[in-house]
């Protein structure tokens, strides 16, 4: 029997029916057609399927869809604010941090989860945080640089807004 699941995906109330054995990845891609989240392995080893589930970075291929009941899910489709790219997306473009681009959604989601926790990570913190995301094209150099650059941009924007806010 199918299960009825209520969630918020990228801020929008979303309901779906799924089988108990369906993974969140399958439901996102096949039922909801949110195909920005990719399947590279379905065993939790590549990070292409990364999403944020109730503020936790997870491999959606390792989460059962029924576990998402009443949860908030963020996927790559929710990163940009309308036509305005998230600083990470912009940095990936500016730094040529993608070649084929299949790993990119996973890296973006993972990197955002990092910067939400740690706004000024070191290079090695970035490297270890995204060690669960495989990229076979880039050798990671430009990806790591893009994440560090985005962190910079976000810190500067934040400090500007804080400064502005502090003015009488």
């Amino acid at each position, binding site marked *: 029997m199918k299960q009825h699941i209520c969630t918020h995906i990228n801020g929008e109330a979303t309901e779906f029916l799924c089988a108990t054995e369906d993974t969140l990845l399958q439901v996102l891609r096949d039922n909801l057609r949110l195909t920005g989240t990719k399947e590279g392995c379905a065993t939790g080893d590549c990070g292409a399927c990364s999403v944020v589930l109730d503020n936790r970075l997870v491999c959606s291929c390792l989460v059962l869809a029924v576990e998402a009941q009443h949860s908030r899910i963020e996927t790559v489709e929710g990163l940009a604010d309308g036509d305005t790219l998230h600083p990470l997306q912009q940095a990936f473009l500016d730094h040529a941090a993608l070649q*084929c681009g299949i790993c990119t959604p996973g890296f973006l989601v993972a990197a955002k989860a990092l910067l939400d926790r740690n706004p000024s990570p070191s290079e090695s913190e970035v490297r270890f945080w995204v060690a669960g995301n495989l990229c*076979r094209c880039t*050798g990671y150099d430009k990806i790591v640089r893009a994440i560090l650059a985005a962190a910079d941009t976000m810190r500067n924007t934040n400090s500007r807004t804080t400064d502005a806010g502090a003015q009488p």
Partner: protein
Amino acid sequence: MSRTPENWRSVGTRPVRPDGIDKVTGRAVFSADFNLPDALHGAVLRSPFAHARILRLDTSRAMALEGVKAIVTARDLPLIPADQATTDGQPPDFRDMSANILARDKVLYEGHAIAAIAAVDAQTAEHALTLVDVEYEVLPHVIDVQQAMEPDAPVLHDSLVTQGITPAPSHPSNIASRHEQVHGDVERGFAQADIILTEEFTTQPVHQGYIEPHACMARVASDGQTDVWCSSQGQFMVRAYCARLLDMPLSQIRVTPLEIGGGFGGKTTVYLEPLAILLARRSGRPVKMQMSRAEVFRATGPASGSYISMKIGALKDGTLVAAQGILCYQAGAFPGSPVRLGCMTAFAPYDIANVKMIGYDVVVNRPKSAAYRAPGAPMASFAAESLLDMLALRLDMDPIDLRIRNAARPGTRAAYGISFKEIGYLETLQAAKAHPHYSAPLARNQGRGVASGFWFNIGGQSSAALTLNEDGTVMVTTANPDIGGSRASMALMAAEVLEIDVSRVRPEIADTSSIAYSDLTGGSRVTFAVGMAVTQAASELLAKLRERAAMLWDTAVDEVTWRDGCAHACVDGKDVQLSLASLAAQAGKTGGPIAAHVSLNAQGAGPGFGTHICDVEVDPDTGRVTVLRYTAVQDVGKAVHPAYVEGQLQGGAAQGIGWALNEAYLYDDNGVQLNPGFLDYRMPVASDLPMIDTVLVEVPNPRHPFGVRGVGEVPIIPPLGAVANAVSRATNARHADLPMSPPVVLKAIQRAARKRR
């Protein structure tokens, strides 16, 4: 083109790629992202045995399962007569390809496909697989290349008689062919040598490791018109191979390329597409097929593993006088390893008077090998560059100086037969030597390795269509999947010729019905060869624009010049100009839409050379190797979009580092793969690597309008040698077996220590 290289405004810049937004927002449609209403799900039954005869194959129970719509086996594939197996004797062999996509009477590796099923959903299809009754007679198998060459080894193909040996052997064996390449007289060369060094090397098969598994969708109309959507390195390749395997006219198939999530050579053939077509034809519904990661490991790729025995002879001053090698490459279950290319490339960077290489192509019970970046070169180069390092150590000579002494220069006749014209190998060595990395101090347990690499680069058949839109923007349509930023480089080259901003150029990749044929994306050919088609088409478009302007001004074409995206002339003593937009708007008055289509067979791809420097630290207690610093130097001709060129160098280096340190297939005693997943087949992750520094040397290729050389293959060649040389220097022990996993390194350290005692 009126601009000179010094004032090119597009070529050599780093704009955001045209397909970038789609790829950072999740909008880009990769192969598994494509859906059609009413599509069935396909699944493949695969052999659990490494080598077995299929005694009985009964699909009736599976077919009876509710929701199963179609099943195909090898019986449904047309038989290809032996004399039609290839085109003019050139690979691929379509009989083998047919037997690889569905086994006929024998399975030749664990994972070999036996049947394909289409059902209403994935679960039903998977369930149906378990209902197929197969009776096997399990046969002895062989995994190792040297064992497969033994006279008493289990033979994979009863009809396989070694080619390239006279007289022809009387018995079948696993040695598909012998290849010999002779340059000068090695015997005489070694007789002159003051020093002779010999070593044996082994490398393991490695998977291309693209993150996107193979997937496709097929739909067949009742009149037989067939559509395929898939990601591959060439939509025309998919069309041609499917037509050949299924005996269909090309005009009946349209292949639409979807975004490709990595290929590296591994997507230059077909696995699922013909099965999906057959299932769609039989069921009357679209069929979607998608490999799991385990299937990717068990049934696609890899690059050949190898056993190599090599010898070099040199004078006391370091001059190489002779080189000799025996290369045995694993082809996998069917003949066709790139051993010939290994023979050709190993010593290509050097000017050596006497070289003899012998290659053996050997079949084993593993998946059929597929191309992987610079096919055949990395393992042969690993052997050659290791020997050079041993020579440098013996002579107490700087390893870059040793290479400079022997480097191929313009005019050098390479051992594989051609004379090099304009090449930049020496420049890469000089740049590497001058790089601060090369003189940085090293600490205890650290070592620095250097190695070089060569790749031919290729040209080939290519098509491009440029059309001027009504508003003056330009479409650049080509036929080659964008695997790492080629849309950007095509747009940049068109923009440069037309002298317009690249933002006004929109590149697109067409399906097989919308543009003329192009060879596939591979061999480092696209920026060079397709770029040539784009450049010529842009020049033709420009000539037409000048004609149209002349018509509007009622003046001679010769009076019209092109500058900054506008036609200029002096009419009645007045300077006049027409922008692209106004020429486009008035096209109706001057003869209709303005477009240019160029199809050509590009010649003159400039060879590529690279030199890499690698620093490692080896933990003497565990054998664990950490790459501390890495620099890749390469002659790229001209970097059209330097950021993506750097990316090619960095990505290739990372793959080569994985090949050198981690990656290997593990098999149990029954020939069953133990690590068909990313957890145990460990590719480098971000925390395994340092930043990868790049130096782009630009020695222009005179045969290309912008001086372009291919860049994609070279960077995977030097890392194997560079890492091995670094580890060998750090541990004072030669490492000749890849991968250099901790236990292997530890053993070599201990062996060397015992020898020294």
